[in-house]
């Protein structure tokens, strides 16, 4: 079981969708980075991800890693947000038959999984149909 620091250090991006925007070329990095992969600039300003976008692709996971076994089957997708950032997350609150490439989704704060009865409860973002 990892120590809690591994979890809490990612909280700014997972809970508040904090990202950084490159002052050199405008590229938005999520999670935040120290050097821009596009232009090499090291200067950034803080920004927040757009709250919605469209689904680029998705799948329905039927064989899961042990942490997620109790959630099977569940949908995961990659969405392109309205600011151009692409994000991976579960797609929830819809029937699998409603899933479609190009579908509009928004980001909501949800529970991701729990580490047993006495462990950490992991939170983060998920996609829901708009």
């Amino acid at each position, binding site marked *: 079981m990892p120590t809690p620091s591994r979890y809490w250090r990612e909280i700014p991006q997972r809970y508040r969708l904090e990202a950084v925007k490159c002052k050199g070329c405008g590229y938005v990095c999520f999670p935040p980075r120290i050097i821009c992969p596009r232009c090499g600039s090291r200067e950034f300003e803080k920004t927040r991800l757009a709250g919605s976008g469209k689904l*680029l692709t998705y*799948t329905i996971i039927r064989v899961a890693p042990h942490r*997620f076994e109790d959630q099977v089957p569940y949908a995961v997708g990659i969405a392109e947000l309205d600011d151009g950032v692409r994000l991976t997350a579960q797609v929830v609150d819809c029937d699998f038959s409603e899933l479609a490439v190009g579908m509009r989704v928004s980001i909501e704060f949800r529970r991701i999984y729990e580490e047993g009865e006495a462990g950490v409860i992991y939170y983060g973002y998920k996609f829901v149909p708009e």
Partner: protein
Amino acid sequence: MRDVAAIGVGMTKWGELWDKSLRTIFVETALLAIDDAGVDRIDSMVVGCMSSGLFVGQEHLGSMLADYLGRIPIPAARVESACSSGGLALRQGFIEVASGISDIVLVAGVEKMTDVTGCEATYALGTAADQEYEGYHGLTFPGLYAMMALAHMHAYGTTREQLARVAVKNHDNGSKNPLAQFPFKVTVDAVVNSALVADPLRILDCSPITDGAAAVVLCPADMAKKMKKPAVRITGSGQATDTIALSSRQDITWLESTHLAARKALAMAGRKIEDLHLFEVHDCFTIAEIMITEALGIAERGRGGRAVEEGLTSLKGKFPVNPSGGLKAKGHPVGATGVAQAVEVIKQLRGEAGERQVKGAKRGLTQNMGGTGGSSVVHVFEAE
């Protein structure tokens, strides 16, 4: 830089080898390669292994395997690049011989995957993806490739049946390979009706969990002329990286790292893709082979599905892809796969591939890939 040749190969039967440990599998295979080469010394060894730490709880493999091979105190390195660890080991061995640092180098790949449960193996394989931003959300490797498949189907009209055709072709080839884990044929019907793993991929779209190893002995091309087996030269080596998070790619239907690694390897060899007679590529999932044939230039972008459907990549086609049966039928002990691809190409170029021999094969290519294409390693081989 010196010219480099492969002078010995070794591979044992792959599968769920419950009675054999990682070190036993490695030593049996390495000895086959050393005996095949007929050498009495090894100057150095490089071993590709993705995750002995998670699969068997053992790191420090270089020293342990040199010890069990009876070769202490030679230098020994373990290299890791997820599922392309074996291909990377070959490249490091190639560089070591080409540079003049060592003469006779043993390159091996090994993975022992069945000492843990299927769930734990799924987790270990998942560490090749971005743990904090993909794995955290419950994504698995079949899930990542499933998303690539759906995007490819959506963009190019690739069909469910075309995906199945890859499995059917590779099992046809694998049925002629006695060392394959699953040396039997499958039908399109069987593939499209097998259990769903991550939609649209089904269990028969996926490569299996396998124990196995493969080994190759390298030396300078000049020295190779005096060896007992016909030498096969490695004339090109290329490697490229890409983001490990699939979502960060500019185009999730395209394998840029494979495209770039192949371009570099072909440029080094002074060859075009049409000059090659066979291809061993990383079909960890059926969609992967379709996308790889596009990235290599065997098929046009978006037409990899049609290429397999039209028989272009079958054993008797213009571009035979995975005559060994590929990862799909031969098995996929992740760290060993890249070296096993080299073993197959070398056997083919020596004319030792038996029933699955590509007639008159003189030049071949291997393409080994880590994660969803976060790394790719490509080599070009030519018969003397």
